[in-house]
């Protein structure tokens, strides 16, 4: 029956169906351009521990504190490291953050805890890295349905490698590139050693020598979530490409025993700092939760870092299920600057030209 209304309805449905992939693609990437190549890059870090069981309030407090720390400089991205228990609490935390900050700015993952110049936290805490200023551009991308969250290496090694390389390549291809791209931050649901293959995939599009850092999300049952533009995802990965007039020096070290964890944290921090021509404006440290588990005193590793970097530079640190960056000399790749592994602490020192 050729009724005009039905025909119009059919056309509308066809339009919606054909638009849906485009809509989804738009939701899975975002680009905030670099406004001024000689502009300022500002990075600030805040951390809040929730001792009252009130994640909404904790999120609001952290977001308010970050906004204050940015001192009027507009934010372009906020990276979250949080360790609240269970999906409900994590949703509430995001809701609290979104009361103060535009949710489109919010990226990150559930981790095993965080550390800043103020100390180390584990349970029920949130740490935020604010990235802003007209001297930085941020391109972000999300890849979903990695298909590997519930696969174990023992039984599914070949499948894991194939799927994660593919996903990494896809993610790398979604990032809008800029001539001044300087640092790629990757946050996948890919517990070491899976992260190795994910990084290899990304490098197929971004290049083997591109500086990258990042960490894998908390893999405890019921806790694994990735955050992209304020929404929660599982079995996914995100990328944040930072562009601007700044440089990054990177280092990584691996250890599994108390004394070596402390020593390698000091060594890696010193190596990264040694390559920076001036005092860094921020330090990122993607660390392994297993390293923390081997410490007699959780704060000893942070103290070692502070011996090198001092106590004034903003430090964004988090504990992960796999780390991305330059591998320890014992594992170093000859074919790429960076890789994905475990038991590492990965430092990135950022300074402006």
């Amino acid at each position: 029956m050729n009724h005009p209304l039905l025909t119009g309805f059919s056309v509308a449905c066809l339009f919606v169906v054909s638009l849906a992939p485009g809509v989804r693609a738009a939701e899975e990437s975002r680009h905030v351009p670099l406004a001024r190549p000689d502009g300022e890059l500002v990075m600030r870090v805040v951390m809040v521990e929730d001792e009252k069981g009130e994640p909404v309030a904790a999120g609001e407090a952290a977001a308010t504190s970050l906004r204050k720390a940015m001192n009027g400089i507009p934010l372009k991205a906020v990276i979250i490291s949080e360790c609240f228990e269970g999906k409900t609490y994590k949703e509430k935390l995001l809701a609290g953050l979104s009361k103060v900050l535009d949710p489109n700015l919010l990226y990150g993952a559930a981790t095993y805890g965080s550390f800043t110049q103020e100390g180390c936290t584990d349970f029920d805490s949130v740490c935020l890295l604010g990235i802003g200023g007209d001297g930085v551009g941020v391109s972000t991308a999300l890849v979903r349905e990695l298909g590997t969250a519930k696969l174990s290496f023992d039984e599914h090694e070949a499948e894991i490698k194939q799927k994660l390389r593919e996903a990494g390549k896809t993610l790398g291809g979604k990032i809008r590139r800029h001539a001044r791209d300087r640092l790629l931050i990757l946050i996948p649901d890919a517990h070491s050693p899976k992260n190795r293959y994910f990084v290899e995939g990304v490098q197929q599009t971004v290049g083997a020598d591109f500086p990258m850092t990042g960490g894998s999300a908390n893999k405890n049952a019921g806790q694994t979530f990735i955050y992209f533009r304020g929404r929660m995802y599982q079995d996914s990965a995100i990328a944040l490409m930072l562009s601007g007039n700044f440089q990054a020096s990177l280092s990584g070290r691996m250890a599994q025993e108390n004394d070596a964890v402390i020593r390698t944290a000091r060594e890696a921090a010193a190596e990264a700092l040694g390559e920076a021509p001036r005092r860094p404006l921020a330090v990122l440290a993607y660390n392994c939760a297993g390293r923390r588990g081997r410490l007699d005193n959780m704060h000893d590793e942070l103290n070692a870092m502070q011996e090198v970097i001092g106590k004034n530079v903003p430090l964004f640190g988090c504990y992960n299920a796999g780390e991305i960056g330059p591998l320890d000399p014992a594992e170093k790749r000859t074919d790429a600057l960076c890789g994905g592994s475990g038991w590492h602490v990965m430092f990135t020192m950022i300074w402006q030209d």
Partner: protein
Amino acid sequence: MTAQSKRHRVVREQKIAVASAPYFKPTIDGDPSDWKDAIPVSFSQGDKKTTIATYWNRRQFSMLVSVEEDKYVPRGAANCFDAVQVALAPRGTETGHAVDENARRFEYLVFGKVEGGDCCCQLAQPGLALAEVARPRSLNPLMYDDAEVAIKRAGQTTHYEFSLPLARVRKHIRPSEGREFYLSVLVHDPDGTGIRDWGVAAGLWEHQRNRLAWSDWKGAQWGDVPPMDCRTQWGMCSSKY
């Protein structure tokens, strides 16, 4: 491993068990279906198999000990009864060899009662005199109601499923991914295999047998030789995925 000279060939086999507890909070109801994401270890005595699976979370350490046996005997059904005895200790500590020393472990006994109800007793905590540990104590004063226990029989297997609160333990063993500690298990099957000792299966040496490593209690039936030390290596991890 094989070593060969011109005239001799020596072969030694060593089996290594991965003993790790992933993060999870199981429902303690005797149903083993919650445990598919655990990393179990198994050993056999005669033709009877025992499987030990563990989980941890912020507040509890949970275990499923599955005991293949012809018959399950709860307390009260006979003079001696079936039970699972568990010891947790911080890494780097030792058991002690003299009764004037103190225990450096947490120790529990899990069993059922013929009149119904599944129980846990706390047999030891750090600081308890080993002289007390060595004495066959009555269990009633040692009941530990904070533990959750469910014992269910399925076919030829008795499943002991229990969760131990970490509130008292965390000062000594801080729960965290990557945390290493000691855990060992004895299964009491007096009408069947006798004592089943994970320490034997884990490969402890004969000189590591230590009567003071395990609390005595009324109703226990011990073998001719002391059990192995209660310190075999275990760890907490995030996930097997």
